């Protein structure tokens, strides 16, 4: 007498006899997006009850076949017995074939590895001088002291005899410390782990810190997503009883540790070979990783518990590495501009040359930093997850089957390319940008993001899509027959509006920062795009829709995942950690909501590419010339 979930072509059966539908679906293998974390406000877990007994707001509801009812999975409880629920769209939290950025580009650096092994020989102790095993070791290793617990692991007869030992030294808070001692070298070099904790995705790289060689990498969706898509919902969840503990365990035990196991398995090494870890993430992610409550960041003045974090042991952090491995967490600039941005700045060598530079981390939080002859200004735009595909009716993350590129050819035919070439299951952020850009070029979409319905009908792609009780105009990207979900994949006018709001937030942030220094877009000498998503945007398309300012494409540098690169840098050259500290205090943080012109900039940036054509002179020139 089971509960059956139907999602497109898939059927999954819940093993449980009772529970909230959202959780049961996840356990049955159909994880659903829950942007608000199950608070009942975002609608992303909408499902249809086809039959069965359920409880909704304290009332029992009996659904008969044919009696279909639309509910939120986070608010509905299954009460047992035969039941069927249709999941209309799976906002995939699965990792199969996910396109997550793990490229690492480092600036020039010295070699000062965060963990190394030294073989030393202790001379025989002099009987006259009063000394100790600890002091003999410390002396031989050039350290101020060593942990007695480690010294105690040496055999008893080691006390005074000459001794050869293999010592593993790891860097923490400005100096090295002894973390492991063996009579003989294990023959395996110590390894280091770089981690980028993003709000949506966590990427790791296993490396040899002495050579900087990346042995392997992995990426996984941050399992905290089950408690909300954005930092605000995570903060809210952290305020519940044991909230911080639960969220911490979701990122360490359920996200990072499984990846460590996967990498070590593939590389035939032992997780305990990892002697140093570096973590870069936004301020809320850093707090939750360390078990610090982020509640202060949730309301003005957005005050974190700390901006500089102590280096802790892997055991304290709950990571499955050598228990004494040192875990470094990059410092943050402010509540909403974190260590991941500090890492971006370090890796890009930002703010060290004359002229105007702009760095944008295109992701959920849309942080950006402006440099004007070395003076730095930072802000966060809270663009939202539209670029990750969330909030769009058929939006999905960059997984196998996601439409990632869209082109309209000269004959007006729409061509969609999916990740892995698999049948389309949805479209991801880069495709949404493509669609709006080429749609505008072809006259299919007007400057406010509305379709030319006649043209859409002539293309045979018009469909009226039912959305929350109203119908909206939509363009079919893939028919039901060719899609991977059994239903047509569409882009509605509501979807376009969501992307426009996200891109307007970013553009308004850029404009506010520039105007604050009396500058215009043409003053930008160097535009740096960071973030995994940045790698997949077609720059001309991003400028066409007005997400990026009108700068020559040659001025744009895409550094990809700067957060991960910064973590690697902190492990191969520990002196870079000083640069991080210097960077964390340099930028003046601009609170966009308090900037009087921000709202106006936002409204004007809602049009494609902008309400004021003089903002995008090269596009206007192109139009005039055709």
């Amino acid at each position, binding site marked *: 007498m089971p509960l059956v979930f139907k999602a497109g072509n898939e059927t999954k059966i819940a093993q449980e006899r009772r529970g909230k539908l959202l959780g049961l679906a996840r356990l049955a293998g159909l994880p659903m997006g829950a942007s608000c974390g199950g*608070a009942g*406000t975002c609608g992303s877990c909408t499902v249809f009850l086809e039959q069965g007994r359920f409880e909704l707001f304290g009332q029992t509801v009996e659904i008969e076949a044919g009696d279909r009812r639309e509910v939120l999975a986070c608010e509905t409880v299954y009460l047992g017995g035969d039941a069927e629920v249709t999941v209309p769209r799976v906002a995939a939290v699965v990792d199969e074939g996910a396109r997550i950025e793990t490229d690492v580009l480092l600036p020039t650096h010295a070699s000062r590895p965060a963990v190394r092994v030294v073989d030393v020989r202790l001379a025989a102790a002099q009987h006259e001088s009063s000394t100790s095993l600890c002091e003999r070791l410390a002396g031989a290793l050039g350290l101020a002291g060593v942990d007695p617990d480690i010294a105690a692991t040496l055999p008893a007869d080691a006390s005074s005899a000459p001794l050869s030992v293999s010592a593993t030294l790891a860097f923490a808070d400005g100096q090295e410390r002894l973390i492991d001692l063996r009579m003989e070298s294990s023959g395996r070099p110590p390894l280091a782990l770089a981690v980028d904790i993003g709000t949506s995705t966590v990427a790791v790289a296993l490396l040899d810190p002495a050579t900087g060689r990346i042995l392997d990498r992995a990426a996984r969706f941050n399992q905290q997503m089950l408690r909300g898509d954005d930092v605000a*919902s995570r903060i*809210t969840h952290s305020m519940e009883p044991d909230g911080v503990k639960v969220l911490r365990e979701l990122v360490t035990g359920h996200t990072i540790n499984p990846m460590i196991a996967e990498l070590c398995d593939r590389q035939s090494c032992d997780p305990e070979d990892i002697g140093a870890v570096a973590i870069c993430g936004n301020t809320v992610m850093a707090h939750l990783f360390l078990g610090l409550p982020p509640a202060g960041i*949730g309301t003005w003045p957005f005050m974190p518990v700390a901006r500089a974090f102590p280096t802790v042991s892997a055991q304290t952090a709950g990571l499955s590495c050598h228990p004494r491995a040192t875990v470094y967490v990059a410092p943050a600039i402010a509540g909403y501009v974190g260590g991941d941005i500090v890492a971006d700045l370090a890796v890009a060598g930002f703010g060290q040359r004359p002229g105007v530079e702009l760095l944008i981390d295109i992701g959920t939080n849309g942080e950006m930093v402006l440099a004007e002859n070395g003076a730095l200004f930072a802000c966060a735009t809270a663009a939202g997850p539209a670029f990750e595909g969330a909030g769009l009716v058929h939006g999905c993350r960059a997984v196998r089957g996601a439409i990632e590129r869209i082109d309209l050819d000269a004959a007006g035919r729409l061509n969609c390319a999916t990740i892995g070439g698999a049948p389309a299951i949805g479209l991801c952020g880069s495709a949404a940008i493509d669609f709006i850009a080429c749609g505008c070029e072809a006259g299919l979409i007007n400057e406010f*993001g509305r379709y030319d319905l006649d043209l859409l009908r002539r293309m045979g792609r018009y469909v009226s899509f039912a959305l929350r009780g109203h119908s909206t105009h939509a363009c079919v990207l893939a028919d039901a027959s060719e899609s991977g979900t059994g239903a047509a994949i569409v882009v509605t006018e*509501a979807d376009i509006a969501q992307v426009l709001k996200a891109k307007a937030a970013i553009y308004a942030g850029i404009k506010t920062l520039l105007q604050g220094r009396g500058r215009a877009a043409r003053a930008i000498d160097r535009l740096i795009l960071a973030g995994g998503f940045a790698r997949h945007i077609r720059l001309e398309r991003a400028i066409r829709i007005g997400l990026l300012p009108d700068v020559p494409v040659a001025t744009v540098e895409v550094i990809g995942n700067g957060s991960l690169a910064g973590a690697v840098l902190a492990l191969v050259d520990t002196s870079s950690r000083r640069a991080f500290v210097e960077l964390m205090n340099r930028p003046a943080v601009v609170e966009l909501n308090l900037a009087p012109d921000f*709202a106006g900039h936002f*409204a004007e940036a809602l049009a494609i590419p902008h309400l004021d054509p003089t903002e995008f002179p090269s596009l206007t020139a192109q139009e005039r010339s055709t």
Partner: protein
Amino acid sequence: MSRHEALYAAICKGKRNDVQALVPQLLAEGAVAEELLTHTMIPAMRDIGEKFSRNEVYVPEMLIAARAMQAGLNILEPVLAKKGHQPYGKVCCGTVKGDLHDIGKNLVVMMLKGAGYEVIDLGVDCGVEKFEAGVAQGATAVLCSALLTTTMPYMKQVVDAFRDRPHIKVIIGGAPVTLNYAKEIGAEGYGSDANDAVKVVERLFGRSA
């Protein structure tokens, strides 16, 4: 007295410059300020608001139309004031304490002005004292918005502060806010979007059908 089609269209299309040119021109030609407001401008905003609720226009167009409307109101207000024009009611709007988001709140302010109400914009990060100050200036409805799940709880404090004065209506809204939440904390009204907020206010002031 029919509506002026050019002005109506300019507001609907968000052509701010056109509105700024048309309003003084029409006044100079002898149009009555109050009639321009009630027969052309308010209906234009109501039209846009209804379309928004029906998903026929979205936030981008609504925001741009509201700005065009505001530009027209800025020119009209001194003229209306001189003639002793009375708004339909007086309300105050603010984003709650700890929250700095104001774009949605600004849209509500513009839509309410566009519907003929006098609106005291209390800004952002508003504690109970700011809402009290709005009421002291004559507002009989208090509209609170919150955009973060972390600042929503403050709405309860606002509702509690006015519980002993039932003639002051507290209306809440914002992306994470729901009708259930409004009922839970005892708010008088809930607006699901800017247009809905106008409808709730109209109902509370006894102006809707």
